[in-house]
């Protein structure tokens, strides 16, 4: 981005700079404990959906919140991985871990291609380019012979993990999903707080300066784009097994918009924001499912309100109150 990002920078640097991250560990452990009890209280499939979207939004946040690149085409990676994993599990009878791995790899390859092209434009153009490429992926998904067109790939078998553990039980699958998402979130946390992550933030705040300090910013941007796409793919592949379905919805532009909304609402550039945003949006969709197209109107309204009045997001505001980065 050309101009230094004003209020987003502020949000990420106001709290104590010398934080040792101990409170992050506390939040992580508390969350984990909560999520271990949750499936005995709430419907596990709903929780798995929240977890998958939390990972999806966190993947986008890695790119948007920490590198300042707004991708409006992340559904391409989510959807592609979803289709590939579903196809591998159903038509090739692969075990779930291999199906997920294959789906994620497909997203990584696609992410490398789209990323390398998209980072050639900056700021607002970047958003348009990623959106356009995602639409291209959508058209391919619509027409390709193996995607099932309008029907998608249905009745995907969940299979047996490593050929041993059957995943047809929702509760068993839940803990597998929790492990996948939990490890990925820790990985994202590690990336953000590594020297590499510091360079990403430097590029976000002032790219020209990062260049003048000798960083090859395009390499960093491509690297984080591929990481983000890969993790978005992991979320999509996992989702395909949870719902036993890969469909056009996964690759549609409205999915890209939804994940941006989750990130924005929860708090861009915060560790826990995307989780809160995903939980909020998924809950809202479940709750308002009976209202039909009004859900879109409500989502649009939340976008407008969040942008006009609430740019820090939920976690951003919390973080300001307790004066610690979350």
């Amino acid at each position, binding site marked *: *981005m050309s*101009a230094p*990002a*004003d*209020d*987003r920078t502020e949000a990420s640097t106001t709290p104590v700079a010398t934080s040792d991250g101990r409170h992050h560990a506390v939040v992580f452990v508390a969350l984990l404990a909560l999520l271990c009890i949750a499936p005995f209280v709430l419907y596990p499939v709903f929780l798995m959906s929240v977890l998958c979207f939390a990972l999806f939004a966190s993947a986008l946040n890695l790119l948007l919140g920490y590198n300042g690149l*707004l991708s409006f085409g992340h559904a391409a990676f989510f959807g592609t991985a979803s289709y590939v994993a579903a196809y591998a599990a159903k038509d090739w009878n692969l075990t779930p871990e291999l199906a997920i791995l294959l789906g994620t790899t497909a997203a990584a390859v696609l992410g490398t291609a789209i990323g390398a*092209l*998209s980072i*050639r*434009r*900056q*700021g*607002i*153009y970047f*958003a*348009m*380019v990623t*959106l*356009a*490429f995602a*639409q*291209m992926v959508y*058209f*391919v998904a*619509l*027409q390709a012979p193996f995607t099932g067109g309008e029907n998608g790939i249905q009745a995907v078998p969940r299979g047996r993990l490593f050929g041993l553990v059957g995943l047809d039980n929702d509760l068993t699958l839940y803990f597998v999903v929790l492990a996948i998402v939990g490890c990925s979130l820790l990985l994202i946390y590690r990336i953000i707080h590594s020297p590499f992550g510091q360079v990403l933030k430097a590029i976000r705040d002032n790219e020209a300066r990062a260049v003048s300090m000798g960083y090859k910013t395009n390499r960093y941007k491509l690297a984080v784009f591929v990481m983000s796409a890969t993790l978005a793919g992991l979320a999509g592949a996992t989702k395909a097994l949870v719902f036993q379905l890969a469909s056009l919805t996964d690759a549609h*532009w409205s999915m890209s*918009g939804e994940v*941006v909304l989750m990130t*924005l609402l929860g708090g861009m550039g915060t560790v826990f924001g995307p989780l809160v945003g995903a939980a909020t949006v998924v809950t809202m969709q479940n709750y308002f499912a009976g209202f*039909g*197209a*009004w*859900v*879109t*109107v409500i*989502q*649009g*309204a*939340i*976008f*407008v309100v*969040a*942008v*006009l009045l609430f*740019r820090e997001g939920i976690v951003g505001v919390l973080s300001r109150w307790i004066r610690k980065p979350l």
Partner: protein
Amino acid sequence: MPVQVLFGQLLLGLINGSFYALLSLGLAVIFGMLNVINFAHGAFYMVGAFLAWMALTYLGVNYWAALVLVPIVVAILGMIVERTMIARLAQLDHLYSLLLTFGLALMIQGVFRNFYGVSGLPYSIPGELAGGINLGFMFLPNYRAWVIVASIVVCTGTWLLIDKTRLGAYLRAATENPVLVGAFGINVPRLITLTYGFGVGLAALAGVLAAPIYSVNPDMGADLIIIVFAVVVIGGMGSILGAIATGFGLGIIEGLTKTFYPQGSSVVIFVIMAIVLLVKPAGLFGKVA
């Protein structure tokens, strides 16, 4: 390959190109002045088509009156949106205005989808333009010829307005240096509001022109605007004439693809975008990357 098929697809390409040109022109005008990518552009185009349909169905206002009135109404709506919302984000990162207009687009589309469903409503071709001419090698429906002519006239008019008039000179100056132009006593915020109104008015005009060709439905703008974004990336937003030429050119290329390789027609513009990004990242007519 029968000649009729080729010319038929070329005509279809020119029609699509007319809409690409009108919409990317509006996007470029708005972007030049506000530095905002108007994600709601497709929604305003859809609103234009719907208002024409509603005016005819509920009020009996005919096509020709709608062609004048609807863009004015939508321009006023747009100016209200600009004053109340977009202007408040002027000092922030441009990504926020993109997100704002995306939210607006979702809201507008959702409301129309609730009341009118997604099946699409018919809008009949005005009597004066019914029928067509047999050119010998193909049949040219009058309405389609009118759309192409109207689009060319409006695009040329906009170019003349911006490049050759005093108002256009103010606009271009304010794009370069709003502070200095303001110091000369020109009301820059008002100029910005008018520009946004004019841009979305163009989108609404395209919507009215489109109503008799495509069925009027709430998603008509969303699908189109993504392609128009690609058109804008290919052309670059540096020049008005560039936006017009790119719009028509890509429409024709799409038509040709439909004739010779139908499977590729939905992705050809995106493939061209990828090639342009590789070869000339700033776009064909763009100034800076």
